[in-house]
């Protein structure tokens, strides 16, 4: 096991200004008590709709957002205090192990830096290789992600979205991490380019023995790349299972509804029944089970009692009183 996330939470207080200053009236639990393990060499997909907390979870792991509570164990040590602490060298060491690939390849590259400058930056920060080697290493990185060494002199605007995402991946790989957290890495790409990047991620995983946390709302990409999949709803994991089991036999009603809602590229497919209602606002979290306001199987018990994540034995955990 490489990474263990234990009871990770991120809460945002909601303040209201009054005569006597601001007071806290509510809190938004963007990530609420999330636990999962990431095994070495696997790809764990993290799916859910917007606002479910999947990106917040990923960012909290790397301390890009300070978590409110919880532990993140990387090779046995809790990295939350390390990344939030004053010891820069210790924090850098952790960051060498876990890197982040951002969603938007247009916003995550400095437009005024050449690709070479962007890729040299990790070497400057981490100084993990002797300086004379840097240029060669950058050239190797570019070739590793399917670009050419000569691209180092070019600027982001000269590249297409798919090529920029390749640069984003190369930048993350510069420090030879063991874990890549990929936050919607293919969501802004066209279909024909998406397949190229997904194939690249798979081949890099095989060649470099990488472990992925793959965050996406695109369930088709997740099915292709993941070994296991966790489904989030309103800040909580509602189901986590091996990919085939989850897609073929979802146990949580939300997972089922999510899978049913994907339009199938087959004109003869019957339209599935549609999940009613919208995601409740993060401030008005339903009592008990968070999904009960939209769940076809909800009873009074679901309003009274929040279901805990229960081990179903086959590598699956589900938080539901009445699993399918």
């Amino acid at each position, binding site marked *: 096991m490489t990474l263990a996330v234990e009871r990770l939470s991120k809460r945002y207080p909601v303040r209201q200004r009054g005569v006597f200053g601001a007071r806290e009236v509510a809190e938004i639990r963007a990530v609420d008590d999330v636990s999962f393990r990431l095994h070495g060499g696997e790809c764990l997909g993290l799916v859910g*709709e*917007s606002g479910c907390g999947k990106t917040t979870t990923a960012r909290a792991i790397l301390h890009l957002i300070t978590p409110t509570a919880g532990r993140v164990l990387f090779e046995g040590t809790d990295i939350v205090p390390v990344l939030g602490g004053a010891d820069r060298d210790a924090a850098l060491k952790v960051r060498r192990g876990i890197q982040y690939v951002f969603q938007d390849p247009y916003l995550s590259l400095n437009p005024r830096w050449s690709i070479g400058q962007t890729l040299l930056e990790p070497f400057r920060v981490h100084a993990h290789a002797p300086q004379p080697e840097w240029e060669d290493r950058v050239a190797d990185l570019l070739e590793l992600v399917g670009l050419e060494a000569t691209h180092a002199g070019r600027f982001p605007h000269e590249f*297409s979205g*798919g*090529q920029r995402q390749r640069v984003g991946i190369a930048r993350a790989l510069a420090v030879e991490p063991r874990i890549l957290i990929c936050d919607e890495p293919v969501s802004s790409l*066209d*279909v*024909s*380019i*998406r*397949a*190229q990047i*997904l*194939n690249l991620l*798979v081949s890099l995983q*095989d060649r470099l023995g990488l472990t992925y946390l793959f965050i996406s*709302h695109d*369930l*088709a*990409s*997740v*099915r*292709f*790349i993941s070994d296991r999949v966790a489904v989030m709803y309103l800040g909580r994991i509602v189901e986590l299972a091996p990919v*085939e089991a989850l*897609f073929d036999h979802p146990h949580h009603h939300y997972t089922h*509804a*999510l*899978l*049913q*809602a*994907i*339009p*199938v*590229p*087959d*004109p*003869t*497919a019957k*339209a*599935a029944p*549609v*999940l*009613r209602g*919208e*995601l409740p606002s993060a401030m008005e979290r339903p009592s008990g089970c968070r999904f009960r306001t939209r769940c076809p199987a909800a009873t009074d018990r679901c309003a009274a009692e929040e279901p805990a994540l229960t081990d179903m034995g086959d590598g699956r955990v589900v938080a539901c009183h009445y699993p399918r």
Partner: protein
Amino acid sequence: MTIDLLDVRGLAVDFFTRTGVTRAIDGVDFSVGRRETLGLVGESGSGKTLSSVAVLRLVPPPARITGGRITFDGVDLLTRPPIAMAALRGRRIAMVFQNPGYSLNPILTIGAQLAEILVWHEKLSRAAAMERVAEMLRLVGITDAAVRLRQFPHELSGGMKQRICIARALLCRPDLVLADEPTTNLDVTIQAQILELLHELKDRFATSMILVTHDMGVVARMADRISVMYAGAICETADAATIFRAPLHPYTRALLQSMPRADRSYRAERVLPVIPGRIPSLADPPGGCRFHPRCPEAEPACRHLRPAPVEASPGHVVSCLKRGSPGVEANAAA
């Protein structure tokens, strides 16, 4: 043969830039029958949006429509005076845009901006217009219409805003709705709701629709016929079942194969078939067949001959030299 509601023939759109004129949309043909939904599918830069807004003559500069015929209900729209187009837009042909957040006016209430349409097109009084708007909001599944009328766009969720935009498009009971990626910014469960709604309303109002999308799943769910676009040209047009079951054009085939699917297992194979290379820019499309640099079947002739559409079987039109299309010298254009 019945006469189509909309018939676009040989549509050409050119980009006029400082460096010269490039032909972005090159001889695009499509038609929409009454009550029919045509899916216009393609990746970014395929010209699907440009072709659809061309129907309303709303092509943004530096692009300009430079050729072709757009016949709507028997009238050539390209020769109509601007005032006649203004009377048509929103009344007989309406649009649903991709981003409902940007296409609603942030400083007007929902009621005010929707009622305005009826006051303008149908010369209704404000009160009567408000009543019609409320009725339409209920039809698009908004239960508390009276409250929503007084709200501003920022107070509504994305799904709700898209429902409002659909209501806005249907206010004047148009003959044709152009829906440009109407669900692309929505979550998958909300997308399913909006697609169901569009389906329902199209039947109810007997509206024809052009659905512009990059999502093969969405188009399979919604369209009767599909035109696949690539780099400003249509590769293939056929009924929806044929496009998915027996596609002829190499691009259509490759597109369908390269798409990961949620309904199939990838345990056995860990590699997706890909279309090599990158999507060309509309401002600088390749010569000859525009797909030739990425086509697995390309041969030398594809580099300089533009394939003209040919009917491979009744209703199935394909533009590919390898499928029997006659080749046209590319230099004839522009």
